[in-house]
C-alpha cells in the first residue's frame, strides 16, 4: 500500500453533490452534512490511502487522484476557488443548495442531482410535467397512496 500522500482533485463543476464518495470512503475522510437548505461535502486535501474508492464510486467522474508532482497544478486550481478552502486546515468543502419538496417543503436533493436523474430517464418522458415531479420520495409515496385510495373508495361497496 502506498503511504505517500495522494492529493484529491475535485472537478467542482462536475460534482452533483450526491453521497457516493462519502459513503464509499472506507475511512470516512469525506464527510457530508446538511443544515437547513444547505448540503456540505468536506474533502481532505490529501489522503494516505490509494484505494480510490471515491474515484470509482463517483457517478460523474469528478474525483481524480493526483500525485505529488502534479500537485502544483491542483493547488492552483484550488486557489482559484479560494473560498472553498477551509482556512487554517487542509480540507476544502463544497456547498450545494437543496431543492425543497413542493408539498412538505423539506429539502431533499440538489438541483444537479435532479437534473442528472431526469437526463437519465428518457428525455421525452421527463420533459413534460408529472404529478410526482418536485416531490420528495416520501411525498411521492403519499401521492401514490392517495390516488390508489381514491380509486378504491369509489368502488368499494360495489
Amino acid at each position, binding site marked *: 500500500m502506498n503511504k505517500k500522500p495522494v492529493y484529491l482533485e475535485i472537478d467542482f463543476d462536475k460534482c452533483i453533490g450526491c453521497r*457516493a464518495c*462519502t459513503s464509499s470512503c472506507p475511512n470516512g475522510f469525506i464527510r457530508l452534512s*446538511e443544515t437547513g437548505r444547505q448540503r456540505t461535502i468536506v474533502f481532505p486535501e490529501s489522503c494516505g490511502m490509494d484505494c480510490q474508492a471515491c474515484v*470509482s464510486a463517483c457517478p460523474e467522474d469528478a474525483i481524480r487522484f493526483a500525485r505529488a508532482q502534479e500537485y502544483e497544478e491542483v493547488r492552483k486550481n484550488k486557489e482559484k476557488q479560494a473560498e472553498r478552502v477551509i482556512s487554517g486546515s487542509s480540507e476544502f468543502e463544497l456547498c450545494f443548495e437543496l431543492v425543497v419538496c413542493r408539498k412538505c417543503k423539506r429539502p431533499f436533493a440538489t438541483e444537479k442531482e435532479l437534473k442528472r436523474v431526469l437526463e437519465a430517464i428518457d428525455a421525452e418522458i421527463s420533459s413534460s410535467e408529472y404529478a410526482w415531479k418536485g416531490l420528495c420520495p416520501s411525498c*411521492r409515496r403519499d401521492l401514490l397512496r392517495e390516488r390508489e385510495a381514491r380509486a378504491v373508495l369509489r368502488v368499494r361497496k360495489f
Partner: protein
Amino acid sequence: MTKAVYVNLSHCIACKACELACEREYGEARVRVEVVLNGAGGGVGVPVSCRQCETPFCALACPENALGREVDGLKFDSGLCSDCGLCVLACPFGAIELKKAGGGSGTSFLNLSGTVVRCELCPGKETPVCVATCPAGALVYTDCESFGKNIRRGKGKKCLKPSPAPL
C-alpha cells in the same frame, strides 16, 4: 413471466403485518402501509413497495449499473452500488429508501449516508414474506395478466349473479 407483489387494495385492512414480516426478515421494512383518506366514508390502507417496473427509472438513473432489468425481474447488485442515492430520486413511487448507516429503519429520506433498501421479492423464497403473511389475502404474488384475470372474474360474477330479490 415477471411476477411482482400486487395489492388487492379493497382487501387491505391496514394491519401492517407485511411491514413487520419484512422487518423481521431483513431488519428494515421494504413495504410500508399507511391509512389514507380516513374520513367519514372509511379509510383505505395502501401498502407501497417496489413495483418491479419493466422499464425502471431507478435502473436508468443508476450510474454504476447496480440496478438492472433482467428477464425475470429487476435485479440489484449491492456490490456495484455506490450509495449515491440517485435511484431514490428517480423512483416515481418513492419505493426505494436509504437505510441509516447505523442500522434501524428511518422514515426520513435525509439519512446522511446509507445503502439502498428496496423490495427484492425475497430471493430464495417461494413467496415473498409479505404475501405469505398477509392475513387478509390482500397481497398477491403474481404477474399483471393473472391479477387482471382475477378481477375480471369477480366483475363477471357480479354482472350475472341473480341479485337477491329486489329490496
